């Protein structure tokens, strides 16, 4: 009982302390607001986008900004603003699912297990991680995405046929699945190693030892004593991870291996303008401004996640306080 009260007191005050410390990091706050805005735009894309992402108007292609199309139109007469907003939604979905599956669930889970049980389990997880990280990273992602797509598409078509439903393939879920699975092998190892090291250092501290001798179950020790101690580093890696996942999606879609047209993605928009082959610079030459809006969004996201991560390191590292 007393223990519980103490716990709740310390946790509220530390949350308060956290926010008051964070609010002192001016750049961090600005970045947090910017990122939050971008994510909200992505989540509410259906309500915010003035047009559908695939609405074409062939009478008005490559047009400059005006009242109808605030950011102008692309080579098929699609509204660029709408495509950017829908593209942000893609990024939001991919980053959040990527973070949840890869870094958080897989990384955290394996890290806790390897750190707590050690031995053969730790050995297998660590060697697997070393194996995965010895691949050239972008190449592995591209290779996986291109190999997986036909298989996954086939699976979905057979599901549609067998269950007599439609719309599954056209909903774009295949794209998200392909990107998610392609990013998975590389995303968990960093988090896992970090959590494992934390657990190593915690598991022999007196209070964990005494919890164990007083008969607490492993599950209770892990959730009550170990997990709260790894939350801070987890938060930091997650922040850096979000920027990395966003960029990976852009790269995959840029190469035409991620989100497929006509579904919008910031990466695909870049490829439309700057050309995948290096030879087609005609759009870049005549309408360079079309590059601007997707690039700025990507840039802000990567920049801001890094700034927020740096701010978190400063705040959460007790030595620096």
């Amino acid at each position, binding site marked *: 009982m007393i223990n519980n009260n103490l716990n709740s007191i310390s946790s509220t005050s530390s949350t308060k302390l956290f926010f008051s410390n964070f609010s002192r990091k001016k*750049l961090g706050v600005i970045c947090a607001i910017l990122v939050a805005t971008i994510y909200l735009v992505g989540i509410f894309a259906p309500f915010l986008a003035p047009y559908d992402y695939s609405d074409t108007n062939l009478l008005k292609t490559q047009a400059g900004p005006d009242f109808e199309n605030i950011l102008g139109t692309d080579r098929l007469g699609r509204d660029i603003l709408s495509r950017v907003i829908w593209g942000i939604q893609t990024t939001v979905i991919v980053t959040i699912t990527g973070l949840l599956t890869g870094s958080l669930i897989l990384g955290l889970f394996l890290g806790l297990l390897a750190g707590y049980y050690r031995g053969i389990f730790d050995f297998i997880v660590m060697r697997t991680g*070393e*194996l995965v990280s*010895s*691949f*050239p990273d*972008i*190449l*592995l992602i*591209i*290779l*996986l995405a*291109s*190999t997986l797509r*036909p*298989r996954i598409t086939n699976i979905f078509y057979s599901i549609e046929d067998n269950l007599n439903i439609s719309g599954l393939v056209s909903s774009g879920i295949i794209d998200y699945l392909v990107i998610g699975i392609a990013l998975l092998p590389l995303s968990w190892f960093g988090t896992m190693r970090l959590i494992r090291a934390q657990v190593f250092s915690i598991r022999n501290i007196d209070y964990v030892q005494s919890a164990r001798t007083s008969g607490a179950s492993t599950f209770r020790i892990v959730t009550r004593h170990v997990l709260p101690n790894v939350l801070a580093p987890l938060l930091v890696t997650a922040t850096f991870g979000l*920027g990395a996942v966003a*960029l990976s999606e*852009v*790269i995959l879609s*840029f*190469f035409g*291996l991620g989100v497929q047209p006509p579904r919008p993605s910031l*990466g695909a928009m*870049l490829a439309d*303008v*700057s*050309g*995948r*082959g*290096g*030879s087609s*610079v005609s759009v*870049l*030459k005549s309408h*360079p401004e079309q*590059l601007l809006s997707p*690039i700025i969004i*990507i*840039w802000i996201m*990567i*920049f801001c996640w*890094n*700034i927020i991560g740096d701010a978190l390191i400063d705040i959460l590292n007790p030595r620096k306080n």
Partner: protein
Amino acid sequence: MLNYILRRIFWIPILLLLVSLIVFFLGVYGPGDPVEVQLGNNYDEQSANRIREKMGLNDPFFIQWVHYISNAVTGDFGESYVFKNRSVSELLLPKLIVSAKLNIISFLIALIIGIPMGFYAAINYGSPKDPLVVIFALIFYAMPVFFTAPFLILIFALQLDLVPVSGWGGIFDKRIILPALTVGVGGAAVFVRLIRSSMIEVLDTDYIKLARAKGVSENMVLWKHAFRNALLPVVTIMGFSLAGLFGGSLIVEILFGIPGIGRISLDSVYSRDYPVIMAIVLIGSSALVIANLIIDFIYTLIDPRIDME
């Protein structure tokens, strides 16, 4: 110590075998049929089967893999599916050289810009100059290559007409300037952050305080005592850059039309030219693993405080 080295060296071939097994699996069970590609419109069951038999594609998976590995060890990565009658090694060697040249120049640019800026930020730690440099570096660090490349092309190639848009002509050709800058600027940002934090850490140590206390001139302290020690972490990054030397910068090579390893790896992924993909992945992984080992050894040599265990 010796035990540790042996263990590490023993682990490398196992690691590479596993890497090759995974890529080989993707190649065999991935979509696309090499025989179909090779025959094109002349495809018929009989000749397809004959070719399959000849290429050993009817053998069990494991036999195929062992066969591939035993050839790969001697440098024979088989023949490309797409470029007929050309061996993979013959195809890849010139591309490796192109990528290596581009990466060396980019690395030099990154060093020349990055180290002085990081040094400058660190000695101004506490003054407003330091965060300014840090934010400046972070802006470039976060700047996607997708932006840097078209931006540079737009200004220097399309507007000012100083250099051609794309192409390749070796180190002493002006077409290398833009791609090397694109890669180099991003790398420089990494060096700024690295050198800065390691310099700040070193400047806070007791031996620097002692040097200052006994009246060593500030220049001597900075250059002789601090800077040399602050360079240690650069070794790590240098090692990884060396490993990446033959890796090719995928995006940059595509955007600037450079015939390097990045370009051909993407092309072979598109055309499902698995022998080429497998060779590229194997070469890349080997470079990474071996570079990692070398970094660790160099590290212990230059910093005796690190214990091998």
